[in-house]
Structure formats: C-alpha cells, structure tokens
C-alpha cells in the first residue's frame, strides 16, 4: 500500500536556509545539506527546497547547494523558486534533484510545463499553485510568491496543468499560509476531486490533527515548515501519531 508522505519544506535565500531552525548541535544552522540530512534521519519521506533569493547573484548559489543536498540525501527532493526555463529545470535535475516545481513562470508561459514533462517525464514536474479564496466562492491563482493576482481560477489552472503534463500539484492556501490554523480543507477536497494526480497540501499546518485532516480531505502528501522548524514536532513523532490515527505512513524507527 502506498503510504502518505510527510514533506518538510526549507526556504533557501542566497544559499542559506532561512526561518527558525531548531536542531541542536548544528555545525552550521543555515546549511541546506546539513538540515536536509537531519530531516532525512528523522524520517522525512522527501524534502522540498524553495529558493526565495531576490537577486540573480543569490539564485546563482543554487548550483552549489543543490549538489551538496543531492550528495547528502538518499531520499528524493524537489527544488523550486524562480525556475523559468527548460534549461534551468534541466540543470537542476542534472545536479541531482529528483523533481522541479514551477509556479509563476508556468502561469506566464504554460508551455513550460509541457516542455519540462516532455524532457524530464511527468513524475519530475510539480506544479506549485498559490490559491487565495475570492468573493465568489472560488479560488484565484497568485504568482510571484503570492504578491500578484493572476486573474486565473485555481481549479481551471490546475486542470490545464495536468493536461500539459505536470505529475503532482503542490497546493498552497494563501489564506492559511503561516497561520497554523489548519490547511484549507475545502480547497484541498475541491482540487482532489478535480484531478487524478497526487496532491501535496501546503499552508496552515499547526498540529498533527491538521495533517490528519488534510489526508482525510484527499491529500497524498503534506508539506509543513513551521511545525518542524520550530521544534513543536519531530517528523518521527508526527508519523507515529498519524499511524495511530490510521493513516498509512512509512515508519523508519
């Protein structure tokens, strides 16, 4: 039986992991490879890295840290943030990442999804969608890290992404992101009923109950940042609690 995945997410800026990091005895608390290793040892099923560098120079550090992470990990990882061309996507996969995620650039140029899927396979292409609830009861896609409304309906966009060949959806609720008040279950279940590819829920995780609810609403994997980074929970504890609630997880201890 396929298990449900727990995916810690790390934001990387100028080659350094940003946002609170709880591990004790780290030689270098901002080193992506060292943190990746810790999460893997704790039982993470895979990892997502989002490069949030604002500058060209900052993003230029990707070559170095993606390779170090690949050398360190024996679980899969995804790299996203600012990927806007096929050659960039290809470069990141060649450095050892297993998947790339595209967001803003795909909204601007949907063909990017088809190009990446054609060269790298559907399984390597994650479509990241930042969705925000609108007044008419639907969800709108935002781009540029959630700053810019695109005018596109999230469900329609996700369906188009699937047609173009993405292999997974990373669905972030803009309304819930950073609130720790739980995932947007309504949105999650809507998307889950609309497409037949795996969905990674993101935005709003504050407790094990929230992760459980996301799986119940149709998520195949859950992404979480703060609950792991701040030390509220370890990945291992979360998996044990979910297993006790009847969710199939891969146990590593």
């Amino acid at each position, binding site marked *: *039986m*396929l*298990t*449900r*995945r727990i995916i810690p997410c790390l934001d990387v800026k100028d080659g350094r992991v940003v946002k609170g990091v709880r591990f004790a005895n780290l030689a270098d608390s901002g080193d992506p490879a060292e943190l990746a290793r810790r999460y*893997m040892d704790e039982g993470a*099923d*895979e990892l997502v890295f989002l490069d949030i560098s604002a500058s060209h120079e900052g993003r230029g550090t990707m070559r170095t840290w993606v390779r170090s992470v*690949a*050398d360190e990990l*024996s*679980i*899969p990882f995804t790299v996203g943030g600012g990927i806007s061309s096929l050659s960039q996507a*290809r470069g990141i*996969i*060649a*450095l*050892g990442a*297993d*998947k790339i995620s595209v967001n803003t650039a795909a909204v601007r140029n949907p063909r990017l999804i088809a190009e990446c899927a*054609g*060269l*790298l*396979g*559907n*399984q*390597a292409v994650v479509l990241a969608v930042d969705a925000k609830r609108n007044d008419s009861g639907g969800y709108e896609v935002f781009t540029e890290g959630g700053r810019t409304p695109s005018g596109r309906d999230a469900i329609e966009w996700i369906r188009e992404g699937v047609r173009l060949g993405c*292999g*997974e959806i990373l669905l972030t609720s803009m309304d819930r992101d950073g609130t720790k008040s739980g995932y947007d279950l309504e949105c999650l279940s809507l998307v889950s009923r609309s497409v*037949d*590819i*795996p969905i990674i829920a993101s935005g709003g995780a504050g407790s094990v109950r929230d992760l459980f609810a996301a799986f119940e609403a149709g998520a*195949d*994997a859950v992404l979480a940042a703060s609950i792991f980074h701040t030390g509220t929970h370890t990945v291992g504890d979360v998996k044990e609690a979910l297993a006790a609630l009847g969710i199939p997880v*891969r*146990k*590593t201890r």
Partner: protein
Amino acid sequence: MRIAIIDDGLGNTGSVKSALEFYRYDVRLIHEYADIDGADLLILAGVGSFRTAVEQLRKRMLWKHLDNAVCLEHKPVLGICLGMQLMASWGEEDGHTQGWGWIPGKVVRIPDTMVKVPHIGWNRVSPVTKNDVYFRGIRSGFFYFMHGYHFIPENPDHVIATTGYGDMTLVAGVRNKNVVGLQFHPEKSQGDGLRILRNVVEGLVCR
C-alpha cells in the same frame, strides 16, 4: 569490481553513483560505447520518457552496443525505473516505441480509474520468492516509486517483486538471466535502498 553507469546527462545517475560508492565499488559514468568494455556490470538509470530515452541512446550509438554487450557477451545489467522499462519489447509513452526486448513484455500507462497516476511515493515491495537473496537484510520493505507507466512482462517467471497500488499489483522488479530491472529508485530509498542495490550488484556479478 567495475561498474559503468550509462550517463544520459540528466537525472539520477549521480545519485546512483554515490550510492554505489558507499560500498566502495569502482563506479564510472560513461558516455561512449568504448567505455562499456572494461565494466563488470552496466547500469541504466536516467529519467524522461521512453521515446526520448530510446532516441537519445540511438543517437549516441549506444543502443546497439549495449544490446550486443547484454545479449552476445552476457554482461550483467541493472536497469532502474526508466532503465528497467527500456528492457521491455515496447513502450507506449509518447507513441509506440521499440525497446531492447531483453525481458519480453510491454510498458503501458497505469490505469487511473481507481488510483492517482503517476504512482509517486513510498510503497511496500514484496519479493515473489521467499528468501530472495536480493532482499536479504531488508528492514522496512518500503521503496520510493515515481512512474506513470508500468511494465507487464509476458512471462510471469520474470517478475521477482511486486507492489500493491489500489487494487492492482504492479511489477516492482524483473529478472531474466543477466538482466535485472527495478521499478523503484533504490538510490532514493534510504537504508533499504542501499542494501538492495548492493545485493543486486553482488548477485548479478557473482552469478
């Protein structure tokens, strides 16, 4: 022991190399057919679609040479994920494309009526034969899959391992004499992945 990984310039060849180096094998990424000769074991890894991979290997003149090495010289070969699928007679991804046919059978889309496709994540793998040497020392039995197409061999005896997905049983491993294929990614499956990789390598070379 010398291991040659056929480098497609893409994908997981680097991870496979590091995983094997963990066991101190002499591993090389090779780009040309001349480099095949000195190797005790060949590994086909890589990502992309069935058709693109076949076209690339043909363009680089590797297709026929690998076929000769495996069929005429009986060189041991391990295929991982797409590498395993290319061992089939044909695949339907991006249009009907002929494979090597080392393990007769077809590679077709996983039907998505009951399950999500691609099949992505950690799934439990069961060996067909109890006490299969490839599975010696395996603890959790979970391995990482990411594929939208699956291999259906003509001869069920070529299936060495399976995994359950929805109400389907997917082929997770195949073997025909000197040819072994794994659908999952041992190089991305933590401790158990490393163990099975070593078992397969030792098993193939010391046959």
